[in-house]
């Protein structure tokens, strides 16, 4: 009998905005050091799922557990303690405009871990090197960097505190294919190096296959298929088939009004 406690476990998680049900009893368990990618069309609730785990949105019902401990409905101090163990790469990078690159990278170390600024700067430079950024960019403003470099800075910030869990929200969106592959490689390398548990959301299938151990597909608020990354193109699930092959015809009807 497998007794490993999942690192992240969602059970019956529901979230609605008014009458629009976004998550409808979602179940997902992620083992320690596993990398799971959730795929699904735009507006299917992938980001909402991540935000519910991070506490940025409050789920209406269900259970969200990290290392077996319930985190749904916990207080702000407990949430801060949990979030210290989590890194997050935002879709638009979400770098702080008012801070130079190195302070963006070391923000969690200075604010969340009370590290002194000189040590934090050294650690930031080290993390930047891990994602292929030279020390020259440390004092630049995020606005002076290209989209790909901003993504690297965001990745360095996500891994700066050596988190046990890392979330990636559309990590390759808006990047050219080569830069997207570079970011995918960096994600795989850093997650493996750190032994972190990773949960990513994307609709980029190249990225999903590269960074995932398992892939899950979200549709109408539920996971309709979960399986090894290598089997996603032969899942036998018509919804998954249509999505991964990018076909307009199939059971998934896009809500397009002409």
């Amino acid at each position: 009998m497998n007794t490993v406690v999942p690192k992240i476990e969602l059970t019956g998680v529901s979230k609605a905005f008014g009458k629009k049900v976004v998550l409808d009893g979602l179940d997902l368990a992620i083992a320690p050091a596993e990398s799971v990618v959730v795929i699904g069309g735009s507006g299917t609730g992938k980001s909402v799922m991540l935000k519910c785990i991070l506490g940025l949105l409050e789920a209406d019902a269900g259970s969200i557990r990290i290392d077996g401990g319930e985190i749904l409905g916990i207080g702000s101090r407990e949430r801060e303690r949990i979030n210290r163990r989590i890194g997050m790469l935002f879709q638009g990078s979400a770098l702080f405009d008012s801070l130079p690159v190195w302070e963006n990278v070391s923000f969690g170390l200075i604010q969340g871990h009370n590290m002194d600024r000189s040590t934090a700067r050294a650690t930031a430079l080290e993390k930047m090197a891990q994602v292929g950024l030279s020390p020259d960019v440390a004092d630049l403003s995020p606005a002076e960097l290209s989209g790909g470099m901003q993504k690297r800075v965001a990745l360095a910030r996500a891994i700066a505190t050596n988190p046990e869990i890392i979330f990636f929200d559309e990590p390759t969106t808006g990047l050219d294919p080569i830069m997207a592959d570079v970011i995918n490689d960096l994600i795989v390398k850093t997650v493996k190096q750190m032994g972190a548990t990773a949960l990513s959301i994307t609709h980029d299938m190249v990225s999903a296959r590269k960074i995932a151990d398992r892939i899950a597909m979200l549709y109408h608020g539920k996971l309709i298929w979960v399986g090894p990354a290598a089997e996603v193109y032969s899942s036998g699930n018509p919804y998954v088939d249509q999505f991964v092959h990018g076909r307009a015809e199939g059971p998934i009807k896009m809500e397009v009004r002409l």
Partner: protein
Amino acid sequence: MGKLLDFLARIGRVFIAFLQTIGRVTIFSGRVVSHCVRPPFYPRLIGRQMVEIGYYSLPVVGLTTFFSGMVLALQSHTGFARFSAEGAVATVVVISVTRELGPVFAGLMVAGRIGAAMAAEIGTMRVTEQIDALGTLSTNPYKYLLAPRLIAGLTMLPFLVLVGDIIGVFGGYLVGVYKLGFNPSNYINRTWEYLEPLDVISGLVKASVFGFLVSLMGCYHGYNSRGGAQGVGAATTNAVVSASILILIFNYFLTELFFAK
């Protein structure tokens, strides 16, 4: 009958929405204030906001109060001349500037300059997920973003008003002495003669309240902005308009509190 009911229902909906907004603002301000007095504190950020509000607003507040003092001297002179009461010009200038014009004009100017900037900056941070990023980096946005702005607004507007009072009275002095022909020492004597501590103190208390309101509105509208550039634009407009209206409303009640017999 049906149209009347529709009309009443519409009024009711507007009234309920108004009450909801008051409730939301009250809860929001309570949360920010509670974070202002609980550690951790961010002295570096508070200092940066104090410089932004206090130092960089000095030129605009100085110019406003300077010309207000000058206009006041000129207007009161032409008005009082009808009753041969020109000698009251210096007293009217100093009391008007310290009690009313200084705090209200400084408040309105800072609402335009700082309230708008706060709403735009925080609003942009909201729509670009920077505020969400703060949360994931174990940093409470109320403490890190909002509390320093509220503390800076609360403390720096009295400083601005004090400087504005001096500049405004000086503007009145220049017009009084060089345009209206008052004797300089007489004008200064008249300025001091009827000035009471309460005139200045009430102005500083008003300034503090206005500073709080300007920062609160900037933070509230910025923090709750939605929907990209348009949402940030709307937040900026709402911050300035609501702060300006609140300043004028609170000015009446504070004046009544201090001076109504």
